[in-house]
């Protein structure tokens, strides 16, 4: 079995100087250590689509940066397509692509077409291969209309599509996406998600996605690695993750005067019928819906390390 990514006890610490007196600051400097990533270990097989998620400051971007050679680990071992990102940067670069939603990697004063031509030279892509691949990607991501305009004139959605095309020109085996749909509207998000899945299906590209959008995770990925405080909290397939939380139900009850109450129950503790009987007694109901918790709620629960909710009906905000 070949792994696209192997990480063993990977750690990264950042150091900042402590506030000290003048002489102490010169002769006896002290540093604060912040452990951003703490002995992470996981493997990702070729062709997997993995969501790498966690709350702000969890260490996910730091981990991605170590895997893409931007940062060097403090300790531990990382291999991407068998290469060490810290030592084989240039060689690895031919095998990976990366898109950062909050950073542009295109040349702002050039059109995407010029940027793509420049990237073809950077990645040593033969001209015939480049032309064929570009034609396919332009059609897939529908960027033909604005490919010759300067990047600085684009909307966010247009820019993101071009950024993804730029990261795929050299046919990378692994694609890292750090919040690729941030700020996009629902239509643009749906398009990008669909195209990423198609890319994975057609070319077997391994996809590692970090996102705060539960829709990205649910639609694109088949596995989730959730990290918090630099450590892995959960490493599960999306199906199993949802199944674990499917025992929870969210019940929305609309009263006669239009008041909506939202209840959470854990059906492992309290049968659904008993919960419904209780709710019906409380309100003068006109409508009732029973839902599975959304991916967003599942993740929120994982982040907050919430215990299984008590075996009573819990009223949520209205």
């Amino acid at each position, binding site marked *: 079995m070949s792994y696209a990514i192997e990480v063993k006890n990977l750690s990264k610490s950042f150091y900042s100087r402590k506030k000290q007196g003048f002489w102490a600051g010169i002769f006896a400097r002290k540093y604060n250590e912040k452990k951003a990533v703490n002995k992470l270990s996981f493997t990702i097989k070729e062709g997997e689509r993995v969501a790498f998620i966690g709350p702000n400051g969890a260490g996910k971007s730091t981990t991605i940066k170590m895997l893409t050679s*931007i*940062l060097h680990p403090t300790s531990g071992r990382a291999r991407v397509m068998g290469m060490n990102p810290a030592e084989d940067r240039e060689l690895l*670069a*031919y095998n990976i692509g990366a898109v950062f939603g909050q950073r542009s990697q295109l040349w702002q004063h050039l059109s995407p077409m010029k940027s793509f031509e420049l990237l073809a030279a950077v990645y040593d892509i033969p001209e015939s291969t480049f032309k064929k691949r570009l034609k396919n990607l332009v059609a897939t991501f529908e960027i033909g209309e604005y490919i010759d305009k300067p990047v600085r004139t684009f909307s966010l959605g247009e820019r993101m599509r071009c950024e993804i095309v730029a990261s795929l020109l050299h046919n990378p085996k692994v694609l890292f996406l750090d919040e690729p749909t941030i700020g996009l509207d629902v239509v643009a998000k749906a398009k990008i998600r669909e195209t990423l899945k198609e890319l994975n299906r057609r070319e077997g590209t391994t996809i590692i996605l970090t996102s705060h959008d539960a829709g990205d995770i649910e639609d694109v990925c088949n596995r989730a690695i959730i990290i918090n405080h630099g450590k892995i909290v959960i490493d599960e397939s999306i199906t199993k993750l949802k199944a674990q939380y499917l025992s929870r139900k969210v019940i929305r009850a609309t009263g006669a005067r239009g008041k909506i109450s939202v209840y959470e129950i854990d059906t492992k503790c309290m049968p659904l019928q008993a919960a419904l009987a209780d709710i019906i007694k409380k309100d003068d109901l006109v409508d009732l819906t029973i839902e599975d918790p959304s991916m967003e709620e599942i993740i929120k629960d994982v982040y907050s390390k919430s215990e299984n909710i008590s075996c009573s009906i819990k009223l949520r905000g209205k």
Partner: protein
Amino acid sequence: MHKYLAFFKTAYITELKNPYMIVMRLVMLTLLVFVTQQLWLVIGHKGFEPVNIVWYLVMNEMLFFSYDGKMQKKIHNDIRSGNVGYSLIRPFSYLSQCITESTGMFLARIPFLMVGGGIIAYLLTGGGLPTTYWGIPVALLLMLVSGIFFNTSQVVIGLLGLYMQNTHSVAMIFQKFMFLLGGLLFPITVYPQWLQDIAAWTPFPWAVYEVSRLVYEFNWGIVFNTAAHLIMWTVATFILAYVIFKQLLKKVSVNGG
């Protein structure tokens, strides 16, 4: 090498797509030379031929308008914002990219400045040529090396963003040294000897004065001496850029999250 040639070509072509800036540079060159020429008329030429002074000034201003101050700002901003770290994802050296692009921009500008500057000097002198006009082609060749030195210096100044919040002040000081110690407006022979001796230990007179004076005081001894010093200072600047860049890579710490 192919990828850096692509960076060079893109920068070169992008520069040529801005004819308005080419014209503006020539207009500014003409104004500066004209005003300085009038200043020399007032102070009485100090033993220099008026024709030689005009050609000397034009040569200097060609160099001044050809080097790229924007690269220093771009590098500084890339360092302060952390963008430089993201260049590590791609298989090229950020430093080599900056130097190649900077050279491309310079080589796109200089032919227009050389031709335009030559015409302007000819007109301002009423059709006069400098004393050793046959030295002009050699001076122009050395000017290419000066230009590469100044562009690489801008890269070094930008890289100082690793240590400083604002490298603009360093760029301004550098420019002032170019003016004073390089003899941008006055040949440095008008300075007291002690100041000339100090200047000789810096790259500025070799990159500016010694190149431009070949138009009125040409000999092969000066050419080889100037070329040797210029090459030495240019190589030293490349090495300094490389050393600072290596430090930068060690310290790069892009904000997570």
